[in-house]
């Protein structure tokens, strides 16, 4: 087993200078990130910040699959959007508390990821991307027609409710810190997954799948596991977004959303821990400022795609990591 051999390797190492669970520069960056996010709502519009946090978590979940699993899903809007519908429905119609509503959305995303993932990993590369896109489009048409999603209107006026029945989330401060806690918990979980023995096996599969198979790893199980994890965490982001914006709509489940999360990850730097956060912040900020220009947002996003693919494949954080010679 991979876990045992890692333990052996760690025990064989004479001196451990850094804490085993995180290199020092990552610890510093996470601390700075947390400090910045604790101060930020006093300087920036909290709703905007929460939007960034939701998309940053979404992009990080997507990056777990693309950057570390080497699987390009072009249909992650399905998990993000479906979770947001279920979370909104649970909060509004079933009257669940926000944490349970978000949990149910996350759960649905995980189940959806299990079903679609099990089918999609039967094909590879380009076909995998097309299959995931097609399944996401199926979810989109389902959302368009299913009675509980409200069709074109979506689910509006979702109550934010009381967290654990105690904290009133209709006030911006508790809501912000709730979202921050979900975001930070999600990011740390992803970090942990990447740096676990499981993450190392994923890395091996990405680099040389045939070799991983010959070493006895059940490659498809690892792929499916990372797919489900990624879908569930995307669902967590979508479910949280539904509570924050009190809205679940077709936008969240449309293919353009799948494209956006790819763009965020690509721009920030795929296969880096902090890249998707930077990418999400840049794209959401851009959308915020260009919202009044309508279709120009699409054109600019397309242009960023082209430039990023042709000239800038490492992404922003990837380039910085290359300069500083430290994995970020």
């Amino acid at each position, binding site marked *: 087993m991979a876990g045992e051999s890692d333990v052996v390797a760690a025990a064989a190492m004479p001196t451990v200078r850094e804490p085993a669970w995180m290199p020092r520069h990552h610890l510093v960056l996470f601390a700075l990130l947390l400090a910045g996010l604790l101060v930020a709502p006093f300087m920036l519009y909290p709703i905007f910040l929460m939007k960034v946090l939701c998309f940053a978590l979404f992009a990080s979940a997507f990056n777990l699959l693309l950057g570390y699993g080497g699987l*390009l899903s072009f249909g992650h809007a399905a998990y993000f959007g479906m979770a947001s519908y279920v979370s909104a429905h649970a909060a509004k119609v079933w009257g669940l508390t926000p944490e349970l509503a978000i949990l149910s959305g996350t759960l649905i995303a995980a189940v959806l990821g299990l079903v679609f993932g099990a089918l999609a990993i039967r094909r590879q590369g380009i076909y995998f991307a097309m299959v995931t896109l097609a399944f996401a489009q199926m979810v989109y048409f389902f959302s368009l027609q299913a009675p509980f999603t409200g069709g074109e209107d979506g689910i509006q006026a979702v109550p934010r409710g009381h967290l654990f029945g105690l904290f009133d989330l209709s006030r911006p401060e508790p809501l912000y810190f709730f979202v921050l806690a979900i975001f930070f918990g999600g990011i740390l979980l992803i970090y942990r997954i990447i740096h676990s023995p499981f993450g190392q096996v994923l890395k091996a599969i990405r680099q040389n799948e045939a070799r991983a198979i010959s070493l006895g790893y059940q490659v498809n199980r690892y792929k499916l596991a990372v797919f489900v994890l990624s879908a569930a965490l995307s669902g967590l982001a979508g479910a949280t977004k539904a509570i924050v914006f009190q809205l679940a709509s077709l936008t969240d489940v449309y293919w353009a959303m799948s494209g956006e999360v790819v763009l965020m990850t690509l721009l920030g730097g795929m296969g880096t821990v902090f890249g998707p956060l930077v990418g999400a912040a840049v794209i959401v900020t851009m959308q915020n400022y260009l919202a009044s220009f309508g279709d120009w947002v699409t054109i600019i996003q397309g242009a960023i795609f082209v430039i990023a693919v*042709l000239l800038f494949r490492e992404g922003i954080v990837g380039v910085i990591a290359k300069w500083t010679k430290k994995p970020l």
Partner: protein
Amino acid sequence: MFELIGIPPQALFGQLLLGLINGSFYAVLSLGLAVIFGLLNIINFTHGAQYMLGAFVAWMLLNYLGIGYWWALLLAPVIVGLLGVIMERLFIRRLYHLDHLYGLLLTFGLALIITGIFKQQFGVSGLPYSAPALLSGGYNLGFMYLPVSRAWVILASAIVCFGTWFVIEKTRLGAYLRAATENPTLVGAFGINVPLLITATYGFGVALAAFAGVLAAPIYSVNPIMGENLIIVVFAVVVIGGMGSILGSIITGFGLGLVEGLTRVFYPEGSAVVVFVIMAIVLLVKPAGLFGREI
């Protein structure tokens, strides 16, 4: 008149005809994707936008230059194909040495740009494009009414599909193409200009998409988003058929159009997703696709 399980024959055959028309578009578009994928190893995400461009070029030829449908059927694919050639030379060429996924991302970005520009210029409400006089009217076949314009779309697609199959499978040029698909280095060593062949192939695949766009213009309205959702269905068609075989793409395209038409008769709510459901079943039973080769 006879009835089939409570469905009047007019409705049944009417929907089957509609299905066959959709199937024509699936066939021509998936054929273009397969031709491009065979040689370039990229999935051309811009295909839907290029289909839309074909319709728009036809509309512009008519409204700005007074050039009608029949000439547009020839000119629009040439113009859009040349645009494709420029795109291949400027952008796509730079990615051949990289992972195929970058080609997908690049062409996705290009599709966003093209679609965005047309949305910005023309809105999304759609522009009318009237069919030429020759295509008006229709035949009463007894069990259904067959409009000439619809019959023409199916006939024209079938001819183009057959022509493409013939060129690729039965001519010397097609033999070069197939050889370059198998082993580009070796074909280059025999003195054949492989980069030119690649550019020409991309241009041809794009021209096929534009041709489908011109065919679609009189039937559906000319709209910047006409290719957006269609291309995703075509991706599913490609997954179902597998891109290994030209004839396979054609049969799968027409067949799935028919299945979709039938679904619209018996279970209308399912018609939007039936292709995706079939894709799921094919992935379970024969992951390489109906006509695909196991890798």
